């Protein structure tokens, strides 16, 4: 394709008026309002369905909701999750659930915040909450274990609590 070049007038070809116009443009931006967000002090606003790091939650009674079904481990695209299944405590109120993870490791170096784990979980035990700056000084530190995940996740309001009377 042949691009038609517009015919420029002498004034335009002089180039200098445009230069001056540009100089005025940049100069006029100096006193304007700045858009910089002073990050660590000033956090960005997060909107409703924000997907941060995946974390484990407890139900209102404070029990671990995860039943170690390992579906999330299976679905996770970058294989960031590892579930070590174990048993619930003998005689506990939720002993009929039988299984719970004895450890639950999410490798935050690998997680891509896709939300598949949240989607697949039959127990609504894992959610992508609002922590977006996951950082650490070593790879080891970036392996989030069960305790840390539960602590970060906190309690999730849950009206159904399907294990309550089983």
């Amino acid at each position, binding site marked *: 394709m042949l691009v038609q070049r517009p015919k420029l007038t002498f004034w335009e070809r002089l180039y200098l008026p445009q230069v001056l116009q540009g100089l005025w*443009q940049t100069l006029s*931006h100096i006193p304007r309002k*700045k858009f910089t967000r002073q990050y660590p002090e000033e956090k960005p606003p997060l909107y409703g369905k924000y997907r941060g790091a995946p974390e484990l939650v407890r139900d209102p009674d404070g029990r671990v909701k995860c039943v170690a079904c390992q579906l999330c481990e299976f679905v996770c695209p970058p294989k960031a999750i590892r579930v070590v299944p174990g048993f619930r405590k003998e005689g506990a109120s939720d002993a009929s659930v039988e299984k719970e993870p004895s450890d639950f490791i999410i490798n935050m170096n690998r997680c891509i915040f896709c939300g598949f784990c949240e989607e697949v979980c039959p127990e609504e035990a894992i959610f992508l909450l609002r922590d977006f700056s996951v950082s650490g000084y070593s790879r080891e530190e970036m392996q989030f274990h069960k305790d840390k995940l539960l602590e970060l996740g906190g309690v999730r309001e849950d009206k159904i609590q399907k294990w309550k009377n089983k």
Partner: protein
Amino acid sequence: MEFVVITMAKIAVMLGVLLTVVAYTVWLERKVCAWMQDRVGPNRVGPFGLLQPLADGLKMMLKEDVLPRHITDKALYTLGPLMAMVPALVTAGAIPWGSQLPLFGRQIQCVVANLNAAVLVVFATSSFAVYGIVLAGWASNSKYPFLGGVRSSAQMISYEVCLALSVVPVFMQIGSLSLCHMVEYQTHHTWMIFMPWQWPSFLIFIISAFAETNRTPFDLPEAEQELVAGYNTEYSSMKFSMFFLGEYAAMFVMSAMMVTLFFGGWSLPFAPFNRPATTLWIGLAHVAIFLAKILVFLFLYIWIRWTIPRVRYDQLMALGWKIFIPLTIVNIVFVGIVLALWGGR
């Protein structure tokens, strides 16, 4: 002996001031560019980020000096950044940065070397910087620096001509090549910039100065988009910072030249700032005036850099050879006629 001591002291002061101004030009550049883009710029190190140059310098010094394996001629490779930096510092010695300072019962002249052909010295030494860039481009032994080196040598050589020719009318009027005489003349008459027949010279000089210092819109030797970083692609640590320093020092010197040639050097057009100083305070005020004027030009450099896109290489060459060089020659004749008819002196 006394002469040596005084000169040494002057060199030390000059160098100290120059390097400080250079460091803060970098700060200013970052700030101004940020403001123009509606950002705030460096603001973490010290108030308003004022200690940022120190942090930058420290970082540069602590960086590992990487010597790429494909570099065969280490001597040339090391010489490159040195040659790029030293000329700019040397030329600074020929520029009068004040009138005189009455100190310890002596009149100390505010210029390191009062040469009677100072302008020639400045142009001659500042063109040495091109060797640094060519050497860097050649010794780096890879294609981007090489292309950057080739471009910049062509660019600097062609604009050298315009730069020198464009100021000939100024000397025709003054009848001297000494920068000190230059300022003296302007204190007695009026600044060159207030004489309309010198305007074309000034315009061509300032544009050529931009090309000479490799600044936007003529920063083709380091055109990031095409050449990575141009001639300094393979350099790191202090060697890289020497190029950086060289570029900003050259900017400083060119601004100083513009101030001296067209804007009356250290003078202001009213008493007591239009006569060589008699007291220390006025002497220092002259130095401050000189620096303030330079600062205006440094701001202009920065302002233009963040406004105007880079020109194409053929446009650059065409502008140099087909427009500016004929224009400067016509300009010389024109000013000659003006001076002959109205006796501009």
